[in-house]
């Protein structure tokens, strides 16, 4: 009995350790003080106003949204096509292409970052939104391919075969059978692609220059000088965004599970 309660206290403390820093940042963002202090003298939305009233912060926010949105379009289309092709490939070709596509998950971020910077600098892509979109897409693609591949693995091939044998053209089969069934997987991949780009910092540090300062880059620049509570407000907004997207992915996965079971 004692062993069991010691165990409960231990893992609950580990959970508190996980959640605590995030809760503190959120609580602090509502402080009325002009610097970070504990406990906050009073609560208010002063730092959210500061964020919304700052041209620079807003510009960075829009840039981040625009870049992440573009990454979603490019990464999701390229990644979905590749996942559809990969499931019919076998052997060395599949292994080589799979390794190429998934390797950004393993190769250390700094190596990817300076490699891309090394070449993009020569093509004047540093400091441009285009450069960021091109680079972030490489990092987002593995998530799309993985997510769509998981959906395809759960797909009953007999449904496609039935459609084809009943006279549907391959493209009709794809549009009316395959696509609806893997759509949740594609959307989860798109969410991952958005978050990957929106939060990306290492590649961005090298590529953003002075012309394409994204939200994480502006936070990074500010953190080097002072821990301004505006960052707490921005961080909290980013945490809320993460929570919303996480919930979205969860709902999509559930829908996928029921859809694939129903048919």
């Amino acid at each position, binding site marked *: 009995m004692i062993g069991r309660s010691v165990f409960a206290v231990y893992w609950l403390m580990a959970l508190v350790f996980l959640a605590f*820093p995030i809760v503190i940042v959120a609580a602090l963002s509502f402080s009325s003080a002009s610097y970070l202090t504990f406990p906050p003298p009073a609560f208010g939305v002063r730092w959210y106003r500061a964020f919304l009233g700052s041209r620079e912060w807003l510009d960075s926010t829009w840039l981040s949204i625009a870049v992440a949105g573009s990454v979603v379009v490019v990464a999701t289309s390229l990644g979905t096509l590749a996942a559809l092709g990969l499931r019919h490939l076998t052997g060395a070709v599949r292994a080589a292409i799979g390794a190429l596509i998934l390797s950004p998950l393993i190769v250390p971020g700094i190596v990817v970052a300076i490699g891309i910077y090394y070449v993009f600098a020569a093509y004047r892509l540093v400091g441009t939104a285009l450069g960021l979109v091109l680079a972030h897409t490489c990092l987002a693609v593995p998530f799309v391919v993985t997510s769509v591949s998981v959906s395809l693995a759960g797909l009953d091939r007999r449904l496609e075969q039935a459609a084809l044998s009943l006279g549907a053209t391959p493209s009709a089969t794809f549009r009316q059978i395959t696509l609806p069934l893997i759509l949740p997987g594609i959307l989860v991949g798109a969410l991952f692609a958005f978050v990957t780009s929106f939060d990306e910092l290492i590649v961005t540090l090298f590529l953003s220059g002075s012309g394409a300062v994204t939200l994480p880059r502006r*936070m*990074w620049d500010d953190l080097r000088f002072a821990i301004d509570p505006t960052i707490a407000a921005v961080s909290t907004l980013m945490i809320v965004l993460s929570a919303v997207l996480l919930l979205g992915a969860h709902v999509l996965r559930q829908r996928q599970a029921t859809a694939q079971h129903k048919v």
Partner: protein
Amino acid sequence: MPSRVTPILLVVPLTLYMLAFYALPVASMLLRSIADPSWTVENYLRLAHDSVFLAVSWNTLRTALVVTLGTLLLGYPVALALSRLRHGAAAVVLAIVLLPFWTSVLVRSYAWMVLLGRRGLINELLLSAGLIDSPLRLLNTPLAVHVAMIHILLPYMILPIASVLRQIDRALLRAAAGLGASPRRVFSQVVLPLSVPGVVAGILLVFVLSLGFYITPALVGGPRDLMLSMLIAQQVDLLNWPYAACLSVALLAMTLLLILVLQRLPAVRAVLRAATQ
């Protein structure tokens, strides 16, 4: 049925994209380590006697080791609890594990700057409790790097272990208990051995990710506790491309070597296969 040509055509656009904007740029940068301006391996020979490189590599490996151990000690019990909880409670715990997982590394590093700073929460609490007279130096120390990295990488340890624990057949546990094993014995002789694949997968993930960490040590670490990735960034700022490329190859080699060794373990293969399917 699709012909043999169509699948290849579907894969071509992404393959070309990845070659053009990722693989070739990284490869051409890495080539600078042996071709600057003529072919040479001198850069690599120099690494063996380069005291900065050796010290930074040692610091990187030690940090990765401490972080891996820390996440294992904190993560295993959470994974175990997660596998034993009823549906509703398990969903709450899972949400608490996943939310930080989805929150940006920058935001989580910032949270630790807030907590550990000179006027941060921890110092304020210790001061007001009368335990210390002046603020402790917590931020910009190796300790700060370890704690923040353990916090950031903890979900990577919990998730694979929890997924393996969830697959353990309940009948085995009932059988062991029915045959007279105490709960402690059921754990040490049934649950623990069966969870090894998840543990090894978690260790692999956390160790590999730790080796390449950049943002967190740069923000919460001290100027003297360089990680390899920070040294690489520094050399790029100095436009010392051959040396930066050489260090990148070293970091990449460490990462790949670790993956190759651990991937040979059959237990890990099973988990990785399950994770990618």
